[in-house]
């Protein structure tokens, strides 16, 4: 009798365990990461346990010191370490990319120790690409978070002058939960900067129809008026 009870306990408890694990396999729990990346993440979790975020934070502390001492390669290494240890942290992706594509690249541009402008420019572009690569990895971890898409859009717009890519990123960010109204407007500005007046007009009109916030509507209407006024003077030209 006792054995039967024990078997029932094992079967019922084990069944419950497997039922919960089956629920955990639902599509919304899946990410777009490769198996290798996922195994790596889980292994780090297991080995470091609760210290994983702390190790990431300590690497991040070194990011700040590397930035202050303008050691860009070390800065890059520490950013990589921090995001590898704790990819869930948006802060690391967001600020990490800003360090690379803005601070490191501008640091190289203004590097007086390098006399050849070509080399400076080459290094500047290198760090911009590192920042882009970091954010592109970040969006694979956080495909549904507007902040990373927004940052990627800004990087394309401000550092790479690729307004088409910037528009795509802003548009994607604007459709995600929690995105403030200005993100959708950034997509419109990117189209304007690209020189695509027809699409920009169409986009602004579309946004005006969709927008319910009075403050947003006022800004969009102002923009539309300006665009229409400008188009009477001269055709839009893409920014250099």
């Amino acid at each position, binding site marked *: 009798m006792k054995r039967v009870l*024990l078997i029932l306990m094992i079967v019922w408890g084990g069944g419950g365990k497997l039922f919960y694990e089956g629920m955990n396999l639902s599509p919304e729990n899946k990410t777009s990461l490769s198996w290798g990346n996922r195994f790596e993440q*889980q292994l780090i979790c297991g080995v470091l346990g609760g210290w994983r975020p*702390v190790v990431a*934070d300590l690497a991040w502390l070194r990011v700040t010191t590397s930035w202050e001492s303008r050691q860009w390669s070390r800065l890059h290494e520490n950013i990589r370490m921090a995001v590898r240890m704790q990819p869930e*942290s948006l802060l690391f992706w967001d600020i990490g990319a800003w360090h690379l594509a803005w601070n490191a690249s501008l640091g190289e541009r203004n590097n007086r120790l390098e006399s050849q402008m070509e080399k400076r420019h080459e290094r500047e572009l290198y760090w911009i690409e590192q920042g882009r690569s970091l954010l592109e990895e970040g969006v694979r971890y956080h495909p549904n978070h507007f902040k990373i898409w927004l940052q990627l859009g800004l990087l394309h717009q401000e550092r790479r002058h690729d307004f088409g890519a910037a528009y795509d990123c802003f548009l994607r960010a604007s459709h995600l939960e929690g995105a403030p109204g200005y993100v959708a407007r950034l997509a419109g500005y990117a189209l304007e900067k690209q020189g695509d007046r027809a699409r920009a007009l169409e986009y602004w009109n579309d946004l005006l129809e969709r927008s319910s916030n009075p403050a947003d509507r006022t800004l969009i209407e102002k923009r539309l008026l300006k665009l229409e006024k400008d188009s009477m003077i001269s055709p839009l030209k893409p920014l250099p």
Partner: protein
Amino acid sequence: MRALGFRVATLTGLIVRELLRQNVLYLILIPAVLTLLTLPLFTALTFEEQIKFTRDFCYGTMSIFGVFLAIIATAQSISNDLEQKTIFTILAKPIDRWEYLFSKGLGMSWILFLALLILGVLSAGLFALQEKGLIEAAVGNATHPLSAQELQGLRDQIWNPALLMALLILYFKLILMVGFTILFSTVASSSLFTIFTSLMIYVIGHLQSTAREWMMSSEGISVGMKWGVGFMTVILPDMSFYEGADRILMGASPGLSSLIPSFGYTFFNLFWILGLSTWLFESRDFR
């Protein structure tokens, strides 16, 4: 039923007292407290970074020392009973073996609750110590005078009530590890074996969900491999059920219902673990 409750309560009380006398409890708890006290040394951070670091550091300390406490103290406790022959005195009384194992788990849960309470209160104290400095720094760095609402927003970032839920999720995780340690203790002859096996289970448990998904979605895997991963899935715990705590540490404030998966998963696991442990313990011959 009342007699059973009385027996379990008495045994649990005795086990808690015995655990409180164990050196291992203090050997783990004191370093944990000392580690937490080093937190004020890390201050060269921005407001957001400092809050994140404080949370991560306090939670990390509780998590890592909690896991060690759950595994080592449980393994030592059962192994001591066997080595010192206390088990004969206990089982000579009208106490079933499952009652003994259940009481061990219950006693250990109390100890873990106490340990988390001590570390939690200490962490709250450290948060309170940092609050004033953090707010002052945020006000100093702000480009405009902060309104009362904005100041409250900063305070809410520091004192996120969901952090208590993260602690509760950690508690469930630790109780699950107590369960697994008891399971290994029923067959192991040395506490060292139990400790290492339980630690291995803890590490591998983090890989379980990914391995399971890989097995379910990949094609062209050999039958042997599928069976291997399938067996691992049935036996091993899936630690991804406790990842909700990480999201809370990142600043999320989920509802109480988000505790259901970690609670339900722990509950069902403890059920089969108790059944299997009792089975194995019943078939063990003490000499």
